[in-house]
């Protein structure tokens, strides 16, 4: 067989196989609703390390089949210039950890956000610190590392438009997507 034709055939076969798997999966698990307030630029693949189609895997041995979705997870808030997990954040993360442990098929991306007062560059780094702090807390609470990816959003995607402390407090956050 001509090499190009061979490659095309293999590719088509692979795509068909992936499609079949995708269809089967749809029957096995309820489709995840798109996150509210999502923007056109938000990534749709919560775990970029995986290849397409394998973000949920209902056949993992010992996995638990909860029905929770990412929208059931609480948003975590931070103090000014801080990425430490305070008392309120701990309680919210404990609840999130419980839910993630009970739904080990649920894969999430923790998105770290900042208020508008730092510079663009600093906030991109701070957003990653916040996302990483949330991930580390969840791992410490027994959540599987395979369930959590992280992403920084800096100050580019405020939850609330406003230029006062009440707006800033709502924007210093880690969201689950």
């Amino acid at each position: 067989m001509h090499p190009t034709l061979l490659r095309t055939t293999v590719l088509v076969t692979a795509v068909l196989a992936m499609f079949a798997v995708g269809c089967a999966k749809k029957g096995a698990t309820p489709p995840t609703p798109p996150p509210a307030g999502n923007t056109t630029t938000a990534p749709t693949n919560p775990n970029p390390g995986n290849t397409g189609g394998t973000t949920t895997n209902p056949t993992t041995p010992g996995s638990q089949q909860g029905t929770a979705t990412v929208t059931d997870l609480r948003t975590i808030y931070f103090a000014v210039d801080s990425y430490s997990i305070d008392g309120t954040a701990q309680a919210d993360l404990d609840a999130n950890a419980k839910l993630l442990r009970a739904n080990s098929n649920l894969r999430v991306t923790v998105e770290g956000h900042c208020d508008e007062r730092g510079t663009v560059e600093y906030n991109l780094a701070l957003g990653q610190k916040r996302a990483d702090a949330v991930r580390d807390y969840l791992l410490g609470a027994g959540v599987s590392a395979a369930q959590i990816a992280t992403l920084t959003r800096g100050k580019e995607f405020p939850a609330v438009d406003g230029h006062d402390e009440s707006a800033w407090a709502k924007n210093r956050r880690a969201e689950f997507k």
Partner: protein
Amino acid sequence: MRNRAPFVTLPATLLVLSALLAAALPARADDVRLETRSGASSRMPLRVTSLAPAGDRDAGTTAVQADEVLAADLQYSAAFDVARAWVASPQSATPIAEVGGKWTVRGSTVRLMGEVREYPGKQVILAREYVGPAAKWRDVVHRFADDVVLQFTGEPGVSATRIAFIVQEGRTKELWVMDSDGHDPRPLTADRSVAQSPSWSPDGSLLLFTSYRGGGAPQLWVLSPETRKPFLLSGRQGFNTGGMYAPDGSGLVCTLGMDGNAEIYRLDARGGSPQRLTSHRSIDTSPCWAPTGREIAFTSDRSGVPQVHVMDADGGNVRRLTYDVSYTDSPAWSPRGDRIAFVVRTDSGFDLWTCRSDGSNTTRVVAGGSNENPRWSPDGRHLIFSSDRDGTRSLWITDLDGAAPRKLDTGGRKAMSPAWSPRMGATSAR
């Protein structure tokens, strides 16, 4: 995943561009103008006369516009206090010279015979012809204006340069470019994503920028403003932000999160061979080269809050820049080498400050509203920055002489993250 090498996906075009860039830019000699301070000196009174139209019947139309462009260029240079001969206004001081000439349009070609006559005798001290396509007549005027600045200051002006910046519409941010006088703002990306922090290559042929256009974490991209086709430069695990080419074009510095924390790295011009320069559990970000290429200014919160630091180009000899001001960020090293601009946090956002490159002589240059992302003009006479000082986030220029900053017209668009291009080619005649 962690060691994914992004350069293997780079198209050959970029490799060629990088090679040309490195070849075209021999290591720059040490600053020859260290004796000249960054910022403006006092302005010399200068009279600009109308250009005399010749050639095609409609030459007068562009001649009148060229008059205004010439006068604006000379005023913006901060070297002169310009009086327009065609505007009736009392001349505050006797001009040192008169600028004018002949404007000839024939078909698709424009010729400017530029002249500078010194007062009081009106002897011609500069006479030079500038030729270009009629469609780009503004560039012809800019070249003359930059030579007039050269005549009186010993260094060419910067009107024949461009400014890259970011335009926000709703939740998207695209990369744009315009002439240094604000003319012809035009988009370079249409990603419907978030772009940030543009930075020019030393020869002005490429723009580095940070973008979410890849769909996941922020990545470093590069494009030529001519082709507008972005190439991925660094898409490593974690985030990739804030790149800046080395003064000799041989590589760049940027912030990467690939080792689990925000650290500063040097990459080669193709985005490969990462060499880690910082190693601290705090946030290290916003790297910026000294024009000599021997040092790098950056922001670190290792002392508790963000502070500008300086290190040697190999990452050694880290020292905090200023101790009399706190919470400092966004360092920008003057092309003259003598001063560093940065922002200082206030209750309402940021003020703009400069200091000597050793951290002494801290000086606040812009206050009021929130002023961010200072970047120097290639002659070190001006700083461009973004500010919401009049209510809308837009671009402003300060001449560092105490005069009020000047707003750049970007058509009412929300503009931020400016980057002033280097000089584009020679300013000599023809």
